[in-house]
């Protein structure tokens, strides 16, 4: 490939990575576009100083000044932490649409319209929240659930009122009073204080509801949306729709899953409006509905509509958010939920390649975790805790044995792969599932039938009809007991000639490629020889990666002083975070290791690409760490995006690095003084008492985009202050291990 072709292809990758027109057939994710807003580029410390300058210090008591100082310090830094974590997007279709609704609602309030900035928050939670500085975040979870634009408008009105009434600041002042035990909080115990907190929060939420109604009434949105918004919130713990799951979904050719693996009927939805809200931050739905309906009074529906901006746009952005939520569920390893939401989307667009692939990822995820025997302990939530049609998926995933599930997943994913044979991820998934079936579950290729038995379709479908003789005495007893309350226990004839799973590949074995790959996997001798079976060895504490170049992802630096009221030293942390890049650079230069930084703090307004890259990388790392924590070696759901990013920079290896510096409270002083009676320890005790107890922790993770693996994890805890020499010492060692 010549240089021009390479440049062009890299340009195409970078453009296609985050193009604004969303192609649902190749959905890549919700990312930021255009100029980076000042909210994201300005340093937190600058925002804090500006807020303090704006504050009117005349006639303000010292205590209130102190509270305001603490509030502005913490709120600015915490808000920015959220803005920079990659989950908040700007300039995207969803954010643009939300801001259009804002403008519609605040037509008569230009100052307020300018002061409030809305961004989209990539989260499955059905939520919207407001910061004291006028930033409102609306989650993709909420966007996926609302029924129309008017409901969304009412929720935004509620959030605007939080800002107008400065609820964030008053809550902070109140919480300070509670923690100090001032005024009415004097002599209250912990439980009473906690109840007071809930009560205060409910009062603010109730007040915001009523004010929101006033603002909403001034708009031309449908009045019914107020009640509708609360009804939507009531059911927000469920998927956005409750379509029954088609039990024939997994049928393939003549292959059928036994009915015993599905529920006869799913649990009815049990949401109640008048629930006990004593320990809730919001009043219950019934109270909220009542108070807002009273406040609405007899406002007529005349000339009011569910859509003012655009119904078409609403449908479009809602679709984006629903697609995004599937990504989030996959990223958070909630495979059953992702599968069901994806299933709902597939009902509308069955042939969509993105949805087909999402389905493959969900099945692959469940299969790998079941094979690793980590499914129940690490990612699965019992089907009994779920309601509605989604319960069917949880039940099925829980009941089907690991071996059967791997076979089922492979049978379902292989046709998806065949439709897009260029897709390396699907190919890798199939390879791994084949390996799991043949090697982990020790099934022989010859065990699979190549032709259907006459009448097989009906013979093995319903395991509840299985002859009792195939069960042990214990199993029979268990079955008898359970039959009274729950559906029958599914057991299969392990050595049965006609076990249903043996017919799973009847159609697939006619495919030469499938047969060839299965034969290859059958000849595999060790897991290490299989693609995707490599992984980070947690027992190693020293590495030699042999790298020449790497990307350093947004270094983290947190300074904590436990002796102070606000333990996190925000200002120093920010300064250290900015300066550590220089230290990394210096160490890399010494080692002649080429490094490139990706960071989203202290950036120019044109650096939107880096924001998106950080977002993608953080998602990748969060998922990978979760898998590592469960000790499951599995492909990440977003590994293709990671690879695309790697191609964009032409660097395969990415390093995350962080420092945590803690100053602890002096403890055990009495014991130390008693120690001095022994005379010899006197110098040590004096030294200990005179010096601060400081600890510094360094961590670093190096990941390879090509192999989708974490190749190095470095952690070092020292009882030393985070001076320059300590930083250099550790950072140099980290980079040395990468270089050697």
């Amino acid at each position, binding site marked *: 490939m010549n240089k021009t072709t390479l440049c062009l292809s890299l340009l195409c990758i970078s453009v296609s990575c985050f193009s604004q027109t969303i192609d649902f057939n190749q959905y890549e994710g919700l990312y930021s576009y255009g100029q980076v807003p000042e909210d994201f580029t300005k340093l937190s410390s600058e925002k804090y100083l500006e807020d303090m300058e704006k504050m009117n210090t005349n006639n303000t008591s010292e205590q209130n000044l102190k509270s305001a100082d603490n509030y502005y310090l913490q709120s600015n830094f915490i808000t920015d932490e959220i803005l920079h974590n990659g989950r908040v997007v700007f300039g995207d279709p969803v954010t643009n649409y939300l801001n259009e609704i804002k403008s519609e609602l605040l037509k008569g309030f230009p100052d307020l319209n300018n002061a409030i900035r809305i961004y989209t928050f990539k989260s499955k939670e059905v939520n919207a929240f407001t910061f004291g500085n006028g930033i409102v975040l609306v989650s993709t979870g909420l966007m996926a659930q609302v029924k129309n634009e008017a409901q969304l408008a009412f929720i935004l009105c509620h959030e605007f009122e939080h800002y107008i009434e400065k609820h964030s600041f008053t809550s902070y002042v109140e919480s300070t009073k509670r923690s100090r035990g001032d005024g009415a909080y004097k002599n209250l115990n912990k439980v009473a204080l906690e109840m007071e907190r809930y009560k205060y929060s409910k009062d603010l939420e109730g007040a915001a509801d009523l004010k929101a109604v006033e603002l909403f009434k001034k708009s031309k949105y449908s009045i019914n949306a107020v009640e509708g918004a609360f009804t939507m919130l009531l059911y927000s713990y469920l998927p956005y729709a409750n379509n029954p799951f088609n039990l024939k979904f997994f049928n393939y050719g003549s292959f059928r899953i036994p009915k015993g693996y599905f529920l006869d009927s799913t649990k009815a939805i049990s949401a109640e409006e008048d629930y006990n809200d004593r320990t809730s931050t919001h009043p219950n739905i019934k109270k909220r509905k009542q108070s807002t309906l009273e406040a609405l009074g007899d406002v007529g529906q005349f000339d009011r509509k569910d859509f003012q901006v655009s119904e078409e746009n609403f449908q479009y952005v809602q679709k984006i958010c629903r697609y995004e939520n599937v990504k989030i569920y996959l990223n958070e390893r909630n495979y059953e939920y992702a599968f069901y939401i994806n299933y709902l989307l597939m009902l509308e667009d069955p042939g969509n390649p993105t949805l087909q692939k999402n389905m493959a990822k969900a099945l692959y995820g469940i299969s790998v975790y079941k094979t690793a025997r980590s499914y129940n302990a690490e990612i699965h939530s019992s089907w009994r805790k779920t309601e509605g049609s989604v319960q069917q998926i949880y039940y099925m995933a829980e009941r089907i044995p690991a071996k059967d599930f791997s076979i089922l997943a492979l049978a379902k994913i292989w046709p998806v792969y065949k439709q897009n044979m260029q897709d390396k991820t699907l190919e890798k998934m199939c390879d791994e599932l084949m390996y799991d079936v043949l090697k982990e579950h020790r099934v022989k290729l010859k065990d699979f039938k190549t032709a259907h038995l006459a009448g097989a379709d009906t013979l093995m479908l319903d395991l509840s009809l299985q002859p009792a003789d195939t069960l042990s005495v214990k199993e029979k007893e268990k079955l008898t007991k359970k039959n009274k309350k729950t559906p029958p226990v599914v057991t299969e004839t392990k050595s049965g000639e006609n076990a249903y799973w043996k017919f799973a590949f009847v159609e697939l074995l006619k495919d030469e490629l499938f047969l060839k790959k299965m034969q290859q996997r059958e000849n595999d001798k060790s897991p290490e020889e299989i693609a995707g079976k490599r992984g980070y060895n947690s027992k190693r*504490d*020293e590495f*030699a990666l042999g790298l020449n170049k790497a990307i350093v992802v947004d270094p983290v630096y947190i300074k904590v002083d436990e002796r102070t009221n606000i333990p996190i030293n925000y200002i120093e942390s920010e300064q250290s975070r900015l300066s550590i890049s220089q230290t990394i650079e210096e*160490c890399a230069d*010494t*080692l002649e290791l080429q490094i490139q930084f990706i960071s989203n703090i202290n950036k120019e307004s044109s650096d939107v690409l880096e924001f998106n890259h950080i977002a993608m990388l953080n998602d990748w790392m969060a998922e990978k760490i979760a898998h590592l924590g469960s000790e499951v070696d599995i492909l990440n759901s977003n590994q293709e995006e990671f690879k695309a990013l790697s191609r964009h920079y032409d660097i395969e290896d990415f390093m995350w690095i962080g420092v945590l510096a803690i100053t602890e409270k002096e403890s055990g002083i009495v014991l130390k003084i008693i120690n001095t009676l022994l005379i*010899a320890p006197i*110098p040590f005790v004096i030294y200990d008492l005179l010096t601060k107890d400081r600890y510094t922790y360094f961590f670093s993770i190096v990941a390879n985009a090509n192999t989708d693996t974490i190749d190095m994890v470095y952690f*070092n*805890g*020292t*009882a*030393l202050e985070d*001076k320059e*020499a*300590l930083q*250099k*010492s*550790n950072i*140099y*060692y980290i980079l*040395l*291990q990468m270089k*050697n």
Partner: protein
Amino acid sequence: MKKHILFVLIFYTAYANCQTPGYMGRKLSIAYSPAIGVGLQDWGNIKGDEVTPLTLNFRNDLDIEYCIGRGLSLVPSVKYGTSKMRYVSYYNFNDTTSEGFTGDIKLRSMAFGLKFKNYSFVTLGGIAPHGNYFSFEVLYEKSHVASSVFEDYYGTSDAYNIEVDFDTLNYEPAGQILLTLGGGKQEIYRDKWLLDIGWEIGMSLTFPPTKFSNEIYYFQNEQDFSNFANKHIAKTYLLNFSVGFGYLFPEFK
């Protein structure tokens, strides 16, 4: 003894089988470390009815430190120390000789040591040559009399031929092997200057520690004196504190 030393060397060599980052690649340093120790051996020593005050021993160490692992460094060192034996009483009377001495004797010692400084990456998080460390050192030490001060403690007597200058006596203290264990913290400033604050406790293998005595050093022949002198020097290694100043050489490429 040789076996023990060999074992320790093998153990540390095996332990050091990992990458050596040094400090930004810098592995070699030189340091001068004055050390001070309390003269515990003199504590309670009496002069008549008077109790003597605590005395201090001084030592000058020249250390060359080389990092051989991420948490380990090897430190060959030369130590030059001084110590005073208070109220020494020596006499040697026989048919032909009648000589004695009473007074203070100042001893000088020279030692060569090999120290292992373990910054213990796993437990302390240190990366040699920076951070908290534990040390283990093997020393070979030999001392000699620097000077003596005659004191007329017993009074002059015609019966004794009192030697005024102890140095004229023909004696040679034997060498001894010592072991020390220590710890400390080594800081680096401006990427090249070292500050090492440490402590150590030690004992002689050749002259194992005996209980402290509050009696006057009292001996009758040169061999006795040699033993006393070596024990005295050994006790100067009991507890020492040091502050080292060093220079970290640039990385050799």
